[in-house]
C-alpha cells in the first residue's frame, strides 16, 4: 500500500480483502496467480490470506512473490487486521 510509482514487484494491497486473486487492474500477476483466481476460485478472504502468508508456494504454486513465510499465527492475524483496517 504505497503512493510510489513505477513497476513495483507486488500489487497495491488496498482493498485486497474480498478481491479475487490476480484481478487487480494494472498489475502483471504471475500466470499462477491469475489461474488461481480464474479457475480455482481463490478470493482473498481472511482465511485465504492466512494460508498464503503461512506458505505462499503451497497456496499458489508458481507464485512469483518471494516473501519469508509468517509462521506465527498471531503475526499473520496482525497483518490481515492491518490490511483490513487500511484497505479503503
Amino acid at each position, binding site marked *: 500500500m504505497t503512493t510510489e510509482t513505477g513497476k*513495483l514487484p507486488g500489487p497495491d494491497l488496498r482493498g485486497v480483502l474480498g478481491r479475487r486473486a490476480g484481478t487487480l487492474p494494472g498489475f502483471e500477476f504471475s500466470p499462477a496467480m491469475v489461474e488461481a483466481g480464474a479457475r480455482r476460485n481463490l478470493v482473498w478472504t481472511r482465511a485465504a490470506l492466512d494460508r498464503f502468508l503461512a*506458505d505462499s508456494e*503451497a497456496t499458489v*504454486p*508458481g507464485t*512469483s512473490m*518471494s516473501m519469508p513465510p509468517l509462521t*506465527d499465527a498471531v503475526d499473520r492475524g496482525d497483518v490481515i487486521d492491518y490490511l483490513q483496517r487500511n484497505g479503503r
Partner: protein
Amino acid sequence: MHRLLLVLLVALPVLPSPARAEVVVQAYPLPAGGHPHDVAVGADGIVWYTAQRTGQLGRLDPATGNVDLIPLGKGAAPHGVIIGPDGAPWVTEGGTNAIVRVDPKTRQVKSWPLPEARGYVNLNTAAFDKRGRIWFTGQNGVYGRLDPKTGDMQVWDAPRGRGPYGIATTPDGAVFYASLAGSHIAQVDLDTGAATIIEPPTKDQGARRVWSDSKGRVWVSEWNAGNVSRYDPRSREWKTWKLPGDRPRVYAVYVDDKDTVWLSDWGANAMVRFDPEAEKFEAFPSDRPNASVRQILGRPGEVWAPESGTDRLVVYRVK
C-alpha cells in the same frame, strides 16, 4: 537417508552446433516443504541451500543424495546462501534479521543480527568483497556490510528506497547490487559504503539479480521486461537481449566459468542458457510445472538451480 535420484538426459538443442556443449540434467529431491530459495556449491562439491519455509539450511551430498538439515533458530526464514572465502556457507537470514555463518564441519551456527534500530529489513542476498567483508541487501531499502573479523556492521539506506535484491562481486573486487522495485543497479564504494545508481536503458525493467562475467561486466536479469542485460563498467555501455517466448519473466542470472549466461525464465518454466558470442538462447524446460527457480549458482562444469516450487535441487552438468 538415501533419496531417489532422477537423471534426465536432455535432448539435443533445437539448433544443434558442434561447438555447443552437451548438458546432462539431474534432479535431487529434498525433504518436502522447505521450498529451497537459494543454493551454493562449494569447491568440495557439497551443496548448501536455504529451506526458507522451514527455517533451515540444507546440505546435500550429490554423491549419495543424502540431505542434512540444520535449524537456524526460532523464526528463521533464510533467503540467500553463498560460500565464503573460508569455505563456509553464509546466509542472509531473513526471519531473524541477521547474517549467519554455519560451520561446515561442526554445524555450529553463528549469528550477527542487524542493529535493532534498523528494524526488519527483509534480508535478501550477500556477496564477499576481496577484503573478507560480506555485503548484503535488504529489500525494505537497505544494503550493508559486515566485517566478520571484527564484528563491525554498517547498514546504509539505499538511494531511492525499497528494492535492493541480488548482489555480486566482479573479479577485480567491485560490488554491484540490483534494485527490483527501483529498476536499477548500483555500485557500492568499498571504503565509504556510498551507492552510485547506474540506470539501465529500459525503464521499469525490474532488475532482480546481477552476476559478473570474467571480464568484470555485470549481467542483469530483468524481471518485468523479460530481458537479460549487460553493463560494462569500463565503457559504461549497456547491451540488452530479450528472451524468446510469449512473455519471458527473468528471475535469476548466473555466469559460469566459460562466460555462458544462465537464466531462469518463469514465463517458459525453464532454465535458459545464453551464448553472448553467438547471441543465441537455448531453453531447458523443467519436467515439473511451476519449478520457480529463484536463484542459480555453480562451479566449473555444474550449474545448480533450486526449484522452490518442486522442492528439488536440479543440476545442469556441462560436458
